[in-house]
């Protein structure tokens, strides 16, 4: 597979490490959320057959975490974003 890194251009997916569903960005606040919320965050997945937003880490590159939108049936990649930007857009900022 080839991932079009938003900064570095097309890179072989072998340079990256895969983590999983991009909802892992949405970590609850440990001071307010309890075990149930963390359980759902950490363990349960939509696991769709189709479009999937997922986290990849450019370990043999610039160390960016990326959110890659990829179809899990065809492997077609339609969007690649810096995870930091996604996290900010989801309100994970001051």
């Amino acid at each position, binding site marked *: 597979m080839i991932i079009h890194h938003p900064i570095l251009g097309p890179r072989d*997916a072998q340079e990256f490490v895969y983590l999983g*569903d991009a909802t892992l960005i949405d970590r609850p606040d440990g001071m307010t959320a309890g075990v149930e919320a963390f359980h759902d965050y950490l*363990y*349960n*997945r939509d*696991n769709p057959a189709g479009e999937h937003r997922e986290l990849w880490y450019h370990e043999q590159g610039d160390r960016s975490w990326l959110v890659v939108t990829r179809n899990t049936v*065809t492997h077609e990649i339609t969007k690649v974003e810096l995870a930091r930007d996604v996290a900010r857009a989801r309100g994970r900022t001051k």
Partner: protein
Amino acid sequence: MRYSGFRVIAEALTGHKGWKPVWRDPAPQAEYDYIIVGGGGHGLATAYYLAKEFGQARIAVLEKGYLGGGNVGRNTTIIRSNYLLDGNEPFYEFSLKLWEGLEQDFNYNSMVSQRGIINLIHTDAQRDAATRRGNAMIMHGADARLLNRDEVRAMYPWLNFDNARFPIKAALMQPRGGTVRHDAVAWGYARGADQRGVDLIQNCEVTGMRIENGRIRGVETSRGFIGAKKVGVAVAGSSSKVMAHAGMRLPIESHVLQAFVSEGLKPLIDGVMTFGAGHFYVSQSDKGGLVFGGDIDGYNSYAQRGNLPVIEDVAEGGMALMPAIGRVRLLRTWGGIMDMSMDGSPIIDKTGIEGLYFNGGWCYGGFKATPASGWAFAHLLAKDEPHKTATAYRFDRFLKGRIIDEKGQGAQPNLH
């Protein structure tokens, strides 16, 4: 029709005219007591044991493609019970014991062959871990041996002993481990279930679930609605897709696992072997092909095909371990969808919907579990109680922190 050597000879002498269909192709009835979704190994075994061991009737298996077309038809055929943790080992040992009597039980030669499995050890830490594991296995009634380097060398003198990056130091062996002719498992269960009146319905995809007041009433299928008192889902690989019909999210991701077979070769490897310093395990089939595999590709996928880096990684492991196979040719690769669970262990449990039961999360270890999975799932379906060897395989173990994490990798499915 009972199969035997005499029957084979008699049929041969009379032009094979007497062989009957191995299963019927019944039209679905309007309602069943039990519907098993998924005509792979686990689904067929469940139906077989429901009928045979738990005396149940009015059972149907719904398969969206062909019988045995799940991962039972696409795996590296290994059976073993060399697990570490209390939640797992009794279950897999139960499974191995069922394998040991399976062919006589369902009168079909699925070539259960206990030629032994060895896990090679390359570091002191691996030896310590193998000692812990081997002792746990024996304490659970399984068999285990720790082989030293010379004993391994006597078995396979042509492995890389003298020029290895990670030298072989020892091996953990389970003599009762081995291989099984995988398709024949599906066919044997299917035939046994069919003979006991189970309707095996192929080309019948479940497209929805009818749930009323928190209770399952039946399933919508590509061949119409079929009513059921109880529905058991055994569709590992597609668990999330099917259970989404019931509105459930699962602690499971679907990943692709590739496996490989070489051209047919004269005997080279008798048993099963796993490399401890890379991603490679191998056995040789009765037809002569080396059957081998390695790691999953590592990303969510339903594509049933993999990519090149893993093929190369597996070949590198193979060559590092067995430098003599450089000119042996890889014949075929294939990819299957794995239900990768959050702790690497399966789930056999009720759901929040009355009458709906779930069996999945087998990661890439489902084949060896087939008999016990079928038995335990049948037990749960028939009695509403988990089988004694499967009590740990609950959905709520993640909420309660009773995780069964053999590899110690945590909630990251692609590392299990």
